[in-house]
């Protein structure tokens, strides 16, 4: 059979979600038996592209050719049958079964539904042992490390004669030593006629492993090059960032020098020795890519997750339970609006006062008039577009829902706000409204911590920026004309 040099050809691929174009006219080729890397900031469109390739979502336009033939999978199952397997971050193994059972799962030989003993399992175990001899096929998968589970999945894909293996951030959850072992296996896959599409935020890995790299930005294809032609990290970062478009940062008059929050040596499962200070009226940003520890840091300060180390708020140690932290004067806008921030089945009136019920009650009884008045006030102040206090929160747009979550925090009369991805998934108009709210709050003397994986957001809002990588602060810079976004990207992708 004639096999073209390019195992995959993507032509003018488009994916539209309700209001955003997540993948915009993307075209590039993947050469057979190479490791092809895919990079881009969060939101660049990598994940959507992968979902289309694996059949998880449909496309809105364009073509994909697999071995020169039209490829349009309607389900992940069909994608696998056509030879495209995926190693997701959430591994697809069954903990309670043995390694051998996992390898043959879904591909068992059966007679009338009964398992038949064939040499198929032996063949699969053989494949796995050739990749990694140390795993015993009779072992239960629950006893394996994450890295070993990954190897079981890779072996499964290889044994099924997959032509393409997509790996989505495979090193995010494994240790240094295991990474080296994984890389050795990935390099050997080329000899087995497997093409790897490799996604990672860690740019050093790309240079170590990759044959070619495709850079995406804002849903568009920026470039596809052999890695031999990419000079260094800086060049790759330049391609990823392009000319970042953001509202300019306006330096604000330095407020009081009074330190409001002191964090010293904060550590836990995901955080390593984080220390910093925040002054009154300051907006401090924490920038890092997915998994860098932003959410963990916000939750640790808030008392929602356990931690070691010292946190002083207005000079006194901060308690370690959300209810007490709120009482001390700190409020959190959580990462997941619908599951953590909002009571979607309740009305706007039901949501706004929850963080400070004392303000609308007397002797434990709710003062209904006071509650309605406070809700109207919040609607007016934050310009929440809704028909009134009795509107169900579920029926508001994403931006207005987020404003309701802000309203909750403001009603708690917080002096310090922790904002975790404050504008995730909301449209541009609502975004700039929220930015205006954040700036206004800072002017009123509130201190604000912004945790975000969007660099333009951080650059347009924050007075000072801490760069997070792997749960630790790797750099700190004062915002202003001199900030080099490439330098920032260098740090948060693990560069030294």
């Amino acid at each position, binding site marked *: 059979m004639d096999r073209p040099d390019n195992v995959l050809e993507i032509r003018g691929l488009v994916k539209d979600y309700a209001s955003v174009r997540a993948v915009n006219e993307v075209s590039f080729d993947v050469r057979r038996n190479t490791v092809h890397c895919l990079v881009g900031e969060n939101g660049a469109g990598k994940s959507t592209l992968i979902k289309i390739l694996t059949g998880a979502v449909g496309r809105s336009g364009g073509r994909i050719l697999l071995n020169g033939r039209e490829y349009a999978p309607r389900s992940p199952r069909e994608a696998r049958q056509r030879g495209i397997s995926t190693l997701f971050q959430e591994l697809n193994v069954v903990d309670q079964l043995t390694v051998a059972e996992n390898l043959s799962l879904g591909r068992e030989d059966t007679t009338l539904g009964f398992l038949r003993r064939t040499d198929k399992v032996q063949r699969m175990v053989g494949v796995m042992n050739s990749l990694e001899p140390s795993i015993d096929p009779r072992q239960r998968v629950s006893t394996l490390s994450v890295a070993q589970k990954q190897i079981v999945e890779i072996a499964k894909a290889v044994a099924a004669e997959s032509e393409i293996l997509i790996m989505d951030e495979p090193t995010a959850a494994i240790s240094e030593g295991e990474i080296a072992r994984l890389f050795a296996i990935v390099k050997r896959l080329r000899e087995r006629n497997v093409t790897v599409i490799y996604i990672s935020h860690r740019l050093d890995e790309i240079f170590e492993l990759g044959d070619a790299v495709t850079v995406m930005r804002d849903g568009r294809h920026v470039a596809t090059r052999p890695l031999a032609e990419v000079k260094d990290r800086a060049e790759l970062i330049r391609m990823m960032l392009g000319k970042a478009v953001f509202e300019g940062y306006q330096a604000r008059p330095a407020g009081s020098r009074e330190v409001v929050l002191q964090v010293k040596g904060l550590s836990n499962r995901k955080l390593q020795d984080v220390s910093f200070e925040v002054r009154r009226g300051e907006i401090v940003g924490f920038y890092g890519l997915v998994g860098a520890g932003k959410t963990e840091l916000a939750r640790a300060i*808030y008392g*929602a997750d356990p931690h070691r180390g010292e946190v002083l708020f207005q000079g006194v140690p901060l308690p370690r339970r*959300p*209810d007490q*932290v*709120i*009482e001390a004067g700190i409020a*959190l806008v*959580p990462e997941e609006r619908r*599951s*953590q*921030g*909002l*009571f*979607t*089945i*309740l*009305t706007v009136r*039901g949501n706004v006062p*929850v*963080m400070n*019920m004392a303000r609308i*009650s007397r002797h*434990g*009884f*709710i003062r*209904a008039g006071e509650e309605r008045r406070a809700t*109207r006030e919040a*609607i*007016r102040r934050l*310009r*929440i*577009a*809704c*028909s*009134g206090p*009795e*509107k169900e929160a579920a*029926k*508001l747009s994403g931006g207005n829902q987020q404003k309701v979550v802000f309203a*909750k925090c403001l009603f*708690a009369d917080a002096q310090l706000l922790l904002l975790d991805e404050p504008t995730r998934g909301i449209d541009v108009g609502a975004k700039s409204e929220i930015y205006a709210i954040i700036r206004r709050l800072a002017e009123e003397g509130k201190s604000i911590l912004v945790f975000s994986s969007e660099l333009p957001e951080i650059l347009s809002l924050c007075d000072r920026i801490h760069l997070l990588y792997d749960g630790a602060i790797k750099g700190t810079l004062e915002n202003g004309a001199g900030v080099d976004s490439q330098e920032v990207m260098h740090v948060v992708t693990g560069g030294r």
Partner: protein
Amino acid sequence: MDTAAVDQGSVQVGPAAGRLSNESFITFFMIAVLIGLFGMACAFVPNFFLPRNVLNLLTNYWYIIILGIGVTFLLVTGNFDMSVGGNVALTGVVAAWACQAAAASPNPLAVGLGLPYGVAVALALCCAVGVGAVNAFFIVRLRVPSIIVTLGTMMLSRGLAQVITRGAQRNTSLPEVFGVIGNTFLPGTPVKVAVLIMVALVAVASVVEKATVSGRRTYLIGANAEAARLSGLKVGQHVARLYLLSGLLAGITGILLSSEFKAGVSGRASGYEFDALVITLLGGVSISGGFGSVLGMFVGAIILSVVTSAATGLLLSPDWQFTLKGVVTFLAILAQRFALDRRNG
């Protein structure tokens, strides 16, 4: 005029502000179902409309309704309490045992602790709240699913009642006072004091539910427990208190029922936990929490009452009662879901 509407041009077009909330809608819907069923029963069952019968319909299930208050609050937070039936039996048995004369007797089931009635009642209520505390400990502290824990304490409490009564009942050598509260009627009426207690409890519970911070917390926890925690609610503490309350209500029911029969019977109140759950669901409480009301639960109880007494009136064999109850419950809850979905598009 709504200030928000003046303030910005882009107000979303929504329903009129005077529209009923979904919860009131469901309560009215179930009242309509009740009236429909009642009308049908009046048409087919002789003498159904007599005031005496109507009064019975409203008061028959006082004990299920008292239990339903605790079950409703808990279900609104997304938790079950299946232990209330067993708890009623245990409380009744403990009250009787504590009250029985301590004098030696050839019949071991006639020998009790010889405590004064007031102390016996207090002891029994402590037991009932204790069962609630066990529920709370496992569910809140150890995070075991509530359905598992309360099915366990359901059997545990009934089991203890059986041990204390050797599988039967304690009805001898009880003081006269033991039978008073359960058999006293309001002067000049056929209405028992127990019914009055039920009405008072429903009224208080409805106020607590709608007008207090504590009632609001119950809904917030059911609507989104994680958001509630991150909004500073003491979720565990609140749910624990509701289990203690549910235990106390089961205790009150147990005291009243044992007094009515002047006996502590270990087999009493079997299946009441299911009846309490059924009327709660009939009343529109969502099985996934965050939605429902005590008043709705009350309407649900009356629906159940109409259906069972109509069946009796039609001379339907008692064997069929359970089946009929099942069918009506199922249909009513389906109708409810259907109406709510239609309404919300």
